[in-house]
């Protein structure tokens, strides 16, 4: 696995010019949150949208006709800021991460009129189970179809405690999670974002301005690539391209977005 490197990709992705903006039209404004909305995401089925925010709530919205969304549920339960919503790759099951140090899994009730938390991992309500010791910033599911032919079943989360935790999938379509293993990020700042690529590597962006890639070597997670000063400020978001498993995008507080290629 050694010898890999992450380099800034030179391909020109272009910039938006004035004419292009006419192709984007606001179709719908969704209101419900009472303060900053921190994250949003489409479900794998495409008919649901999840949002979460500083008001400690998680909302699920359902597509209603062509361009409207109506509220399906407003879920309480997190004890702090909800930082991120992440949908399961194949099922309409939602994972949320929060300032309250927990990771919650949400599913629609059998009667279809509400959503409930079916599992809390870590934090105060986590029944003393293993988890993060600080804000959990992000969750990313192992892609179901990995490049090497394996079927992914796990999920990784990262937190302000500098740890990345790999959770093992269990239950129906691996929609339930249990603690698997945890490893250190390699720096003493928060890990703000993580993304599990089809190449099997977990990319993480940190408060130390770095991007690091971690891989499983003989069953243990290890840092395999480190790009220090990938940005001039906090790296808030990293994401592997869903189509080209050597492409990674990163966004930072320094105001730039960089595309990287793994070689």
């Amino acid at each position, binding site marked *: 696995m050694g010898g890999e490197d992450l380099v800034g990709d030179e391909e020109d992705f272009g910039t938006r010019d004035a004419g292009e903006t006419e192709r984007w039209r606001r179709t719908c404004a969704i209101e419900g949150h009472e303060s900053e909305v921190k994250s949003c995401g489409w479900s794998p089925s495409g008919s649901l949208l999840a949002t979460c925010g500083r008001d400690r709530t998680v909302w699920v919205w359902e597509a209603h006709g062509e361009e409207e969304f109506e509220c399906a549920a407003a879920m*309480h339960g997190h004890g702090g800021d909800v930082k991120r919503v992440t949908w399961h790759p194949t099922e309409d099951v939602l994972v949320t991460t929060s300032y309250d140090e927990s990771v919650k899994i949400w599913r629609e009730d059998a009667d279809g009129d*509400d959503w409930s938390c079916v599992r809390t991992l870590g934090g105060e309500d986590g029944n003393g189970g293993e988890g993060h010791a600080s804000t959990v910033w992000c969750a990313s599911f192992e892609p179901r179809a990995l490049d090497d032919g394996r079927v992914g079943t796990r999920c990784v989360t990262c937190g302000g405690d500098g740890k990345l935790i790999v959770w093992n999938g269990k239950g129906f379509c691996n929609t339930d999670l249990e603690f698997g293993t945890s490893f250190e990020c390699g720096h003493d700042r928060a890990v703000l974002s993580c993304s599990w690529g089809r190449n099997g590597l977990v990319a993480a962006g940190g408060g130390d301005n770095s991007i690091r890639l971690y891989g499983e070597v003989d069953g243990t997670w290890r840092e395999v690539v480190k790009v220090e000063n990938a940005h001039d400020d906090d790296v808030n978001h990293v994401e592997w391209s869903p189509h080209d498993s050597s492409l990674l995008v990163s966004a930072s507080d320094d105001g730039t977005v960089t595309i990287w290629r793994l070689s």
Partner: protein
Amino acid sequence: MPTDDDASVRSTRGGDATTRGAIEDAFDKCLALESTARDAGYDEGVDAGRAIGEAEGRELGFRKGFELAEEVGYYAGCASAWKACARASGTYGERVERMIETLERECRESKLGDPLDEGILERVERLRGRFKTLVALLGARAVYADADASGLPSF
């Protein structure tokens, strides 16, 4: 040969067992004065503290119980009003009407009576969620914007 003087000296020396015991007790009381006083003060404090604690606890419980019940009562009132509006307008849609019905029923069944019931907060949270969902569905956010009783600081 014992003289009267000898006898009196003998008695002041506490040659008699009970007299010696009595004098030792007297000295013990002096030596233990600090801890005795402290124990007595502690007991008094516990009793006084218990009384004040009970009074403060009752006041706090009243306040918290009131807040919780007020929130549930508010949702029940809204559900009742919305139900009437739904019946009058007939345009709310089956899903919204079903949710109003559920909100009303769950308010009724919220069982706030037992302060030791840990499920109370969970039930109230679910009610809060259903209320907010309905507000969003009815497009009535402007009207109910300040309704959130859980205005705790967040970070």
